């Protein structure tokens, strides 16, 4: 990786065709960001996009179809669906983001312990990871929820427990490679302390691929989080969370299709955008490190 900055400045001759292919590859992340930015704005400052309240009930105007006054229609209690979808961005994204951060952090710690902590630690950590990975992630999350109970914090923790073993395995593999690399050996030869070695050399280099994968993992965590809310364990109604909104609106699908359409479309659009960005980051990363 340290070689790249030197090479990056050099002019590279490319054919017209490969330049076109590159442009096509770069265009899709731009579209993805165009989708993601409004969603991020909705998460950070929902008031900027809509003035009404997501939980004010207005029974007279219940189940109105999408139109000029209510862009996404209204739900069974007359709440404006557009407002609720906008306000739902923050809790929904927080579920996915919290779970991913926690899973990556846990994965990094356990992966490093496995890679650098000796044979016994490696065996212990990786056998537990094997067991967790042999079960469906949703089932692992549900097992945690059975133990701890529902609620936003517990759902975040549950998804993190389900996802962390996968990250731990990557960190371990990366750390094993990095540990044997020349620069780590050189640093060790210079007499660096073990803790400095891990913090300054092994961890940053093992973390790169992990962060790229975590981008895509965030999409999966988002689906899992809103899925668990849909099942009734995460964010509780009347708080507007996309999965919880779908769950609430389920009984009215027959008469009001819009209740089922928009919150799910928000989840899907976010996940697709994140996946596109994650993949382009991934391919850029793999091109950089041969």
């Amino acid at each position, binding site marked *: 990786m340290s070689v790249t900055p030197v090479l990056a400045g050099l002019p590279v001759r490319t054919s017209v065709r490969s330049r076109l292919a590159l442009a096509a590859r770069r265009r899709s992340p731009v579209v993805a960001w165009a989708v993601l930015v409004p969603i991020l704005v909705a998460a950070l400052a929902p008031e900027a996009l809509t003035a009404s309240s997501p939980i004010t009930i207005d029974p007279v105007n219940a189940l109105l179809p999408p139109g000029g006054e209510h862009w996404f229609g209204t739900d069974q209690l007359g709440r404006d669906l557009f407002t609720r979808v906008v306000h739902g961005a923050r809790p929904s994204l927080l579920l996915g983001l919290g779970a991913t951060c926690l899973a990556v952090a846990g994965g990094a710690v356990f992966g490093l312990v496995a890679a650098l902590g000796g044979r016994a630690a490696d065996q212990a950590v990786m*056998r537990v990871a*094997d*067991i*967790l*990975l*042999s*079960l*469906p*992630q*949703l*089932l692992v999350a*549900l*097992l*945690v*929820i*059975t*133990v701890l*109970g529902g609620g936003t914090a517990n759902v975040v923790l549950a998804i993190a427990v389900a*996802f962390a*073993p*996968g*990250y731990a*395995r*990557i960190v371990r*593999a990366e750390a094993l490679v990095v540990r044997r690399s020349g620069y780590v050996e050189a640093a060790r030869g210079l007499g660096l302390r073990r803790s400095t070695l891990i913090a300054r050399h092994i961890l940053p280099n093992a973390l790169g691929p992990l962060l790229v*994968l975590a981008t*895509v*993992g965030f*999409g*999966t965590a988002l*689906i899992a989080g*809103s*899925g668990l809310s*849909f*099942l*009734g*364990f995460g964010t509780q109604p009347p708080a507007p969370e996309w*999965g919880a909104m*779908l769950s609430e609106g*389920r009984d009215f*699908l*027959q008469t009001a*299709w819009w209740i*089922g*359409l928009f*919150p*799910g*479309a928000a*989840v*899907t659009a976010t*996940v*697709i955008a*994140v*996946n*596109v960005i*994650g*993949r382009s980051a*991934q391919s850029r990363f793999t091109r950089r490190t041969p």
Partner: protein
Amino acid sequence: MKTPAKAVTGKAVPTPAEVAPSETSAAGATLPGTTPAEAVIAPGKGEKAGKASKGRRSRAVRAFARRLAAGIAVLYGAATLAFIALQLIPGDPVATLLGPATTASEEVRERIRAEFGFDRPVLLQYVGYLGRVVTGDLGSSYQLQRPVWQLIGDQLGATVQLAVAATVLAVLIALVSAVTTAGRRRGVRAVATAWELVAVSLPSYWLGILLLTAFSFQLQIFPVVGAQDLAALVLPALTLALPIAGVLAQVLREGLEAALAQPFAITARARGLSQTAVRLRHALRHAAVQLATLTGWLVGTLLGGAVLVETVFGRSGIGALTLQAVGNKDMPVVMGVVLLSAFVFVLISTAVDLLYAVIDPRLRAG
């Protein structure tokens, strides 16, 4: 990505434990959103065959013994995980097992206490619990007043039906999509990539709601909710299948493209075979090894997906049973489902191992 031709030179049949880590080692496999191409590590790490071989039978016996041991290890691990989960629940374990809404008499409580030995040291409880699991006693749901294995047995049929239908559908969709689009013009490939991306990004519960709204409520082609006949199976199976089909199609298409670039594909074309025949007869077999690996792993996750899909469509089954048990903190049922899931995992890994030999004749010759 390694081409299948190179990757499967080893004669060692991977044990479930070997299959498991190799499939899930990259986050791709554990996180369905990633490009599966990076996730799939081809099976068979490649034990050099040759002089060391002592005949086919002893190797088969050893492979079987290894697979059995690995399978038992997975089951033991799952049982231990379930036991630890039970220990971690705060509060009186007897109250936990009885559930929140109980009117159990002191007599019943005493019986549970004796059965699980809650007054004894944890290690003894653990040994006793393992002993009961080995003899097939998964305990009782005190909520539903029935043994766990009976509850699971009652619901298993509906979920197996759903899972089998979904798997068949997913593989079919992936096959059609990959065979028709692999190595074609850029426009065709772009369409394939786009639908694969959308499919892997769709939350299954939303897909279910959309299908339900479109085909049951608006067009009224399929029955709405609850019925258990074949027509009622179509939409849930499709819901479960589509995201999986997206992943499979992606991997299969990339595998096919790699195989079509191999010299044998050109040779076959030179022999006068049509483009389609080369795809179906030659390239597909190479790409199918990865398909088998990935399908095996994805079938394991169907049990998780069933929780959501059965909820959306109001079907009964293991998923609905699990959801109810989690909501009621009905720990014996949840523990039973965890064990069932581990058992399915072992079963599928073994089946995939056997499938390798069917797909790749070089693994049979040994």
